[in-house]
């Protein structure tokens, strides 16, 4: 199955020296002119600049220095709590796995390192793939995600994800349904403040839009295992939809406070949709 490729860019300069696709702070063999320096400082006669040398009042030989493009680490932090196994129009878990597969491929294609942090347990170490240029490592993770049984009963472990990120500023996709308390979300966002975080909201239209109009449903929460009887009727349906609208507004507001623009995936995974996020 071809998931396509995501094109992405970041609005900041990468700090890494490893060449890549992104604007960097490093000097080197790029196309972007940085400044002139004396030949002594950059002993590369190929970059000799005649006009700059003639203009120099101290009659020194000036060479041009360019900025290289560097790679950045791309991380996917996945919330693997049980609620992510919801199956509506799309299987959230599959959308998540698709996302991981496609992002690892896209990172490889862009020349970036791909890392994965799966947050499933509150106490144990998260499931971590350290950033790597390995082409299949991300795909391997995705394959496991397709069939993995999601059992975690909270999303608390997202708090520990930041510890696993390296010191370099990274592009971080934080994938979750964000069905957890706002307090927790604020803490998570604060812990990831240094990085470029793209909150990916994995929602499903069957959660709030395409609801049954009539009938009796006993819905269970896979995280708490609690169930509730719903006497579905148009008025309740409308109230659920309103509740989700409010929730969405609240989340957007919270993300906004941390300077993040969320990416809402509610119709399954589509790489163009993600590309569109970066190149609006």
């Amino acid at each position, binding site marked *: 199955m071809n998931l396509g490729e995501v094109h992405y860019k970041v609005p900041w300069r990468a700090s890494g020296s490893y060449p890549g696709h992104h604007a960097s702070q490093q000097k080197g063999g790029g196309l972007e002119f940085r400044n002139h320096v004396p030949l002594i400082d950059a002993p590369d006669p190929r970059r000799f600049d005649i006009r700059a040398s003639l203009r120099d009042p101290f009659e020194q030989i000036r060479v041009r220095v360019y900025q290289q493009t560097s790679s950045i680490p791309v991380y996917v932090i996945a919330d693997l709590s049980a609620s992510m*196994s919801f199956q509506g129009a799309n299987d959230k878990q599959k959308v998540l796995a698709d996302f991981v597969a496609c992002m690892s491929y896209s990172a490889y294609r862009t020349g970036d390192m791909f890392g994965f942090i799966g947050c499933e347990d509150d106490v144990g170490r998260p499931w971590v793939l350290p950033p790597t240029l390995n082409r299949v490592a991300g795909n391997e993770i995705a394959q496991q995600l397709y069939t993995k049984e999601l059992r975690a009963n909270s999303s608390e472990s997202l708090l520990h994800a930041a510890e696993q990120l390296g010191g370099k500023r990274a592009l971080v996709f934080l994938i979750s349904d964000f069905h957890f308390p706002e307090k927790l979300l604020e803490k998570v966002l604060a812990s990831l403040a240094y990085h470029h975080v793209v909150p990916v909201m994995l929602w499903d239209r069957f959660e709030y839009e395409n609801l*049954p109009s009539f009938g*009796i449903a006993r819905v*269970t929460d*896979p995280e708490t295992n609690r169930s509730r009887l719903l*006497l579905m009727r148009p008025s309740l349906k409308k109230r659920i939809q309103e*509740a989700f609208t409010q929730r969405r507004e609240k989340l957007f507001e919270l993300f906004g406070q941390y300077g993040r623009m969320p990416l809402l995936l509610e119709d399954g995974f589509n790489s163009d949709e993600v590309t569109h996020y970066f190149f609006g």
Partner: protein
Amino acid sequence: MFGLMFGFSHPLVLLLLPLAILPLVYHGQKTVSYSSLSILPEDPLSDLANIGLRVLASLVIMSLVLGIAGIFQSEQPVDRIGQGAQTIILIDSSGSMDKPFYSSKKNKTAAESVAKFGTYESKGQMARRVLGDYAAQRKQDMFALYVFSGNPIKILPFTEKQAVIQAAISAGSLEKGLASTDLAAGLTRSLEFFEDKEFTGSRILMLVSDGAAKLSMVAQEQIKFLLQKHRVTLYWFYLRGYNGPGLFDELDSDMIEMTAPEQMVHKFFSETGLPYRAYPVENPDALNNAIGEVNKLQNLPIRYQDIIPKRDLSSWFYGIALVLLLLLLATKLSEIQVWR
């Protein structure tokens, strides 16, 4: 007094009754997975439906268990108020009752002086017919029935059930009377019906007899004692025989002893000083009138106890369970299997 007492034909089944807690503990419904319940808005109606369904299921189990256990309403005494009286009908079933009524025709021919069998309604048949009508009119009365000839026979203890009374009254109309008439035994024994019974209304002893009997002194004392003790009003329907002398015909004492012992009995009853009335009856109309008179006299309310037989209630409980199950079936059918 009117306590609802329940019993069970298979009480051991009641051990299953705790099963009724199950629906309260576990919903037993198919569930659909949903991402997060915390976002769903509060809905009191749904919560109410939740409790209602559980209670409904619990009630189904309870009524099924009660049905299987064979619940019944045990027999119970019920106080009833009747109109009229407790009446003992004491019917003379001696052979003389099979004979026709007195004929007032004077100067009968020899052939006429003997009634021809099959051409008449006998005194007994007539009396039973009229008594049957009387009993049918007084649906709230209680009747007991005794017949006597040689030995008194207890036919029916006090009851107010018309079918039984009618059957008992008509049962004796077969015309196979014995020759002897032991009035004393009939009276004393039939009065035993009042023994140990609450005095709840007027008590009547309807003696239907043609009365050819003598009462000894001992018997007289005992009868008088019993009538007094049970406070019984005695009505004597004296069915005058085809050729018999009446109660009030003036006869000298020798003749009385010889031909009309009923006059002596009447004399004894009159002299006891107890409520007593004699109705000398010479034809069916007179009997009707006499009984009609009693009907008017005895209309005081009486209180008595009746027993309602035990009633099997299990079918009721099965019915309740069925109705509730249909309700549950309806909800089951409206259950959302797939969250769409």
